[in-house]
C-alpha cells in the first residue's frame, strides 16, 4: 500500500543506528551514510563505541552506536535523533534521551525478551512505559526471525545468518528514506568480494528488509531529504584522524621530503599512527616508540636528518613532550606536533572531547618558547590543517602544534579526494636557498627570520645544534646578555612573520551584524549551525572561526573593530578569549565568553539561547 504512505520533506535528519557491539551497526551506518552522500545529501557522522573493550553482550556498556546527520545544511553530526534503530533493549535505554519528540524507533522485537530486558537493567516487562516514552512512533519488527526466514534456503551456518540482521535494519532504513538499493548492492559486493555466498546472503536480507517496510508498514511517513549540488569529483568518507594522516602525506609529497612519524598509542589519537603505518608503499616511516617522549625525540632526530617529521598524541602526551618541543624551538627544527584534545586534566575523560589544551599548546614550556598553533575545524579540514601545519613547519623551520579534538577526530564526513595541484606549494627553507657567505647552523634569513635547514648528511654544511642558547652571528654557544635578548626576539619574530603567508581570516555572515561569534577548532560545525539559524530567524549574527591561532591572520583586528558585541565560544574556561584580550587590547573591543566543558560537543539550542540573549542586549 505504498501509495498511501505519506512522504515528509525535510531539510536535515539525524539517524541513530544502535545495538550491541556485535550487531554490525557501524557497517549499516557507514553504508547508509555513503549512500546518502551519493544521493546528494551532505553528511556528517559520529561513531559511539563502548568504552570497554569487551563489554558483556546486551549490557548498557556494550552498546555501540553510529550517528548520521544528513541533509542540505549539515555542519556537524547532529544532536537529537529523528530515527533510532535499536537492536536491543540496552540500545533503546542508552539512546532514549537523545530523541526528538515524534521520532521513529525501529526495534528488533525478537531481542526484547525478559532476559534481554534484564541485561539492560529494566525492572519491568514494559520498557517503553518504564522509560516514560511518550509521543514517539514505535515500529516493532521481528528482525532476527525475519532475517532467519529470509535465509532459510542459504547453505551457510546459523551464526553467519544471524550476522545479516544489520542488513535487514539497513533495508528498512533505505525504505524509510526512499533510497534505491543499487549502490548498496554494489558496496556489499565489493566488501564481500572474497565471500560471494556471504555477499548474496546480505543482499537478500537487505532487499527483504526493504520490501518488508514497503509492504507492511504504512503507519509512519517516509522521508525525502533535501539534497545539494556539490563539486564534481571523486568522494570518500573520511574521519578527522585519517584526514590528519593524509594531510601529512600530502605535505610530504608536495615538499619532496620523506614523512616520519614517531608516536605512542593514546586515545583518541592512535588512529593517526595506525593509518600512517599502513602507507608504506608511499614511503612513510611511522614508528611506535617506547613512550611519548621517545615519539617526539625520534621525530626531532628525523627532522635533523631532513624529514618532514611529526608526532601524534593527546593532552597527557603533549605534557610529556613539552621539554622536547622546547628543544625543537631552540634548535629551530621543523616539527608537527598533533594533539587530539580530550577531556582533562590528567587522564580525565579519554574518549570525550574538549578544547582545554590551547594554553598548553601556546604556553606549556619553560622559557619564552613560541610555537605556531593551528586548529582543525572539521573532520575534512584536518587534512588541510595538517597540510598547513607541515607547510609552516618546513618553511619557517619551527615546531607547529596542530590541535584537533576527539569529536572531529572520530567524526567523519564525505570528502572530495583532493588534487594536490590545487594546494599551495611547500618550499622547505633548505640551506640550498642560502646564497651568502660564512654560513653556520644558525644563519638566519632576514626576510622570514627562519634559519636555513641543512639535513644531516649534506656535504659542506656540517653544523651543531642544541638546546643551549647560541650566538646570533656565529651559531656558537653564547651566554651573552644582549645576544639572548636578540635570539628571543628572533624566535618570536619568526612566529609572528608566519602571518605573512597564511590566508586572511574569513568572516561568515554580515559585517553589519549586531553580534560576532568567535570560535576556533572543532566547534565550527555547531557554531556555524547556531549562527545560521540565528540569521534565518532574522537575528543578524556573524561568525569568525579561527583555524590559525598563533599567529592569527593579519586582518583579525580589523574585523574585530567592526563589532560591538562579541562572544568567544569555546569548550574551556576562556583560553582563547584570554589570548585575544592580550593581543587586541584596544578600545571598544569587549570579549564576552560562552564556555561549556562537559566532554560533549556544543548544543546548538544552548548556543542560540545564549547568543540571542546577548543579541537582544541593549
Amino acid at each position, binding site marked *: 500500500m505504498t501509495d498511501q504512505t505519506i512522504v515528509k520533506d525535510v531539510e536535515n535528519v539525524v539517524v541513530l543506528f544502535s545495538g550491541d557491539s556485535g550487531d554490525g551497526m557501524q557497517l549499516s551506518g557507514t553504508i547508509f551514510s555513503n549512500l546518502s552522500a551519493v544521493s546528494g545529501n551532505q553528511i556528517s557522522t559520529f561513531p559511539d563505541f563502548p568504552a570497554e573493550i569487551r563489554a558483556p553482550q546486551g549490557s548498557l556498556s556494550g552498546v555501540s552506536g553510529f550517528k548520521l546527520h544528513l541533509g542540505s545544511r549539515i555542519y556537524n553530526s547532529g544532536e537529537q535523533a529523528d530515527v533510532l534503530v535499536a537492536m536491543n533493549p540496552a540500545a533503546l535505554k542508552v539512546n532514549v534521551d537523545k530523541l526528538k519528540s515524534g521520532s521513529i524507533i525501529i526495534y528488533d522485537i525478537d531481542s526484547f525478551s525478559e532476559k534481554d530486558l534484564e541485561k539492560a537493567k529494566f525492572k519491568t516487562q514494559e520498557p517503553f512505559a518504564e522509560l516514560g516514552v511518550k509521543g514517539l512512533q514505535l515500529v516493532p519488527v521481528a528482525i532476527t526471525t525475519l532475517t532467519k526466514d529470509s535465509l532459510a534456503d542459504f547453505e551457510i551456518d546459523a551464526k553467519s545468518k544471524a550476522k545479516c540482521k544489520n542488513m535487514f535494519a539497513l533495508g528498512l532504513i533505505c525504505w524509510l528514506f526512499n533510497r534505491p538499493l543499487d549502490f548498496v548492492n554494489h558496496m556489499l559486493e565489493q566488501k564481500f568480494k572474497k565471500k560471494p555466498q556471504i555477499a548474496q546472503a546480505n543482499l537478500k536480507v537487505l532487499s527483504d528488509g526493504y520490501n518488508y517496510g514497503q509492504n507492511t508498514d504504512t503507519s509512519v511517513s517516509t522521508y525525502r531529504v533535501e539534497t545539494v549540488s556539490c563539486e564534481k569529483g571523486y568522494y570518500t568518507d573520511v574521519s578527522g584522524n585519517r584526514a590528519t594522516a593524509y594531510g601529512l602525506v600530502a605535505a610530504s609529497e608536495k615538499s619532496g621530503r620523506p614523512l616520519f612519524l614517531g608516536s605512542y598509542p593514546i586515545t583518541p589519537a592512535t588512529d593517526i599512527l595506525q593509518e600512517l603505518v599502513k602507507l608504506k608503499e608511499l614511503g612513510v616511516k611511522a614508528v611506535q*616508540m617506547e613512550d611519548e617522549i621517545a615519539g617526539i625525540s625520534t621525530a626531532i632526530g628525523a627532522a635533523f636528518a631532513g624529514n618532514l617529521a611529526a608526532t601524534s598524541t593527546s593532552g597527557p602526551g603533549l605534557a610529556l613532550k613539552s621539554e622536547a618541543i622546547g628543544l625543537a624551538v631552540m634548535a629551530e627544527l621543523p616539527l608537527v606536533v598533533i594533539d587530539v584534545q580530550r577531556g582533562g586534566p590528567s587522564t580525565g575523560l579519554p574518549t570525550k572531547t574538549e578544547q582545554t589544551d590551547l594554553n598548553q599548546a601556546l604556553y606549556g614550556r619553560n622559557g619564552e618558547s613560541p610555537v605556531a598553533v593551528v586548529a582543525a575545524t572539521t573532520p575534512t579540514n584536518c587534512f588541510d590543517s595538517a597540510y598547513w601545519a607541515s607547510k609552516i613547519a618546513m618553511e619557517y623551520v619551527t615546531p607547529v602544534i596542530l590541535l584537533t579534538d576527539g569529536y572531529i577526530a572520530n567524526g567523519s564526513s564525505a570528502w572530495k579526494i583532493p588534487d594536490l595541484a590545487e594546494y599551495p606549494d611547500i618550499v622547505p627553507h633548505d640551506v640550498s636557498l642560502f646564497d651568502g657567505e660564512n654560513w653556520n647552523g644558525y644563519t638566519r634569513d632576514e626576510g622570514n627570520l627562519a634559519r636555513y635547514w641543512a639535513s644531516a648528511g649534506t656535504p659542506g654544511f*656540517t653544523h651543531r645544534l642544541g638546546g643551549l642558547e647560541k650566538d646570533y652571528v656565529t651559531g656558537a654557544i653564547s651566554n651573552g646578555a644582549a645576544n639572548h635578548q636578540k635570539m628571543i626576539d628572533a624566535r618570536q619574530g619568526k612566529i609572528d612573520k608566519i602571518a605573512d603567508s597564511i590566508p586572511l581570516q574569513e568572516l561568515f555572515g554580515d559585517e553589519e551584524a549586531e553580534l560576532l561569534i568567535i570560535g576556533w577548532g572543532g566547534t565550527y560545525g555547531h557554531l556555524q549551525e547556531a549562527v545560521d539559524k540565528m540569521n534565518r530567524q532574522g537575528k543578524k549574527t556573524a561568525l569568525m572561526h579561527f583555524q590559525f591561532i598563533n599567529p592569527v591572520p593579519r586582518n583579525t583586528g580589523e574585523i574585530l573593530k567592526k563589532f560591538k558585541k562579541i562572544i568567544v565560544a569555546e569548550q574551556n574556561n576562556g583560553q582563547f578569549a584570554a589570548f585575544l584580550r592580550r593581543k587586541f587590547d584596544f578600545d571598544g573591543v569587549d570579549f564576552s565568553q560562552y564556555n561549556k566543558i562537559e566532554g560533549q560537543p556544543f548544543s546548538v539550542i544552548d548556543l542560540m539561547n545564549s547568543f540571542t540573549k546577548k543579541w537582544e542586549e541593549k
Partner: protein
Amino acid sequence: MVSADIKPIFTPKDYKSDQAVRWCPGCGDHALLNSLHKAMSELGLESHNVAVISGIGCSSRLPYYMNTYGFHTIHGRGAAVATGVKVANPNLSVWLATGDGDCLAIGGNHFIHAVRRNVDINIMLLNNKIYGLTKGQYSPTSSRGFVSKSSPYGTVEDPFIPAELAFGARGTFFARCIDVDLPNSVKMLVAAEKHRGTSVVEIFQNCVIFNDQIHKTISERLTREETTIQLVHGEKMLFGKNKDKGIIVDGWNLKAIVVGEDGYTIEDVLTHDAKTLDNTLHQKLALMNPENGLPMALGVIRAVEAPTYDRSIEDQVKAIQEKRPIRKLRDLLLTGEVWEM
C-alpha cells in the same frame, strides 16, 4: 684526477671543530674525544656522513667539539633522537655521547629500548659514577654507601652494572675501555662502528673534580695489567704482566688461575667467543671485578649479528613497494571506497 675508488685520507684533525674544548683539565672526556677523532680517521668516515648526538651532562658537550653533524639534545633523550636520525637516514654513521646519569637514570628507558631494537648507532657511555655538571651527586652506577653531596651518609641503593642492562635488553654489542688507554679506546670505537646494530661502549672515565680516582684499581698504569683483562675474540683469556694468568670455568663460576700452577694448563683457559648468541658467559665475564678476585673485563665482550631496526624499516618499505605500484596519495585514496559525483 682522483679516481672514485680511492678513499680520501683523513686525519684526526679533520673531525675537530673550531670550538675551544671546555672540560676541566684532566677530565677523562678529553681523552675519549681524542680517541673518537682518531677512530673516525681510521674508519675513513666523511664528516658530513657522521651525526654525533648527545643528551645533557659534561660528556654530552662532545658534539660541539666535532666537525661533523652534531646535536646536543635534552637530558636522557639522546638515544631516542639518535634513533630518529638513523631511521630517517640509515646511511649516516650515528654516535651517541652520554654519561651514566644521562643514559641510565633519566634516559634509562630510551637506552634499553634502543638496545632492544638494535638500532645501528654507537653509544659511548662515559661512566664516571657521579653527576659532574650539577657538581657532585651520586649516580645510578655509584656503589652502595657512596658518599656524595646528595648522599652525605652514603647511598642506600645498589648500582646498575651497565653490561647487565645491555644484556638484559638483549644487546648485540658491548665493549669496555678505560679513558686514558687511547689505543684500546680507539679499537673499541672502531669495532663499535663496524658492528651493525646498537653498540654500547662503556668507557671508565675519571671525573677529576668530583670523583677523582674512582676507577683507580683498573686504570692505574702499574697495576692495570693485573686488575684487568683485555678480551679478544678467538683468543685465550690471559692477563697479567707476563700473560700467565687465565680465566677458567669452575662449576657455574669463573675463576682466575695461574697457568702452570695448581695443575692448570693453558688448555684449561677459556677462549673468548664474542659471537656466541647465548650471552650467559658474556654476563659472567662482564660481572668480573677485582673486588671478587677477578680482573675487570675490557675489550669487546659481545658482538653478535642480528637484524638492525633502521634497515628492517627500510626493507619493509621496499618489500611492500615491490608488491604495490602506487606512489601517490591521490591514487591510493582512489582505490578505496569511492563514489563519483
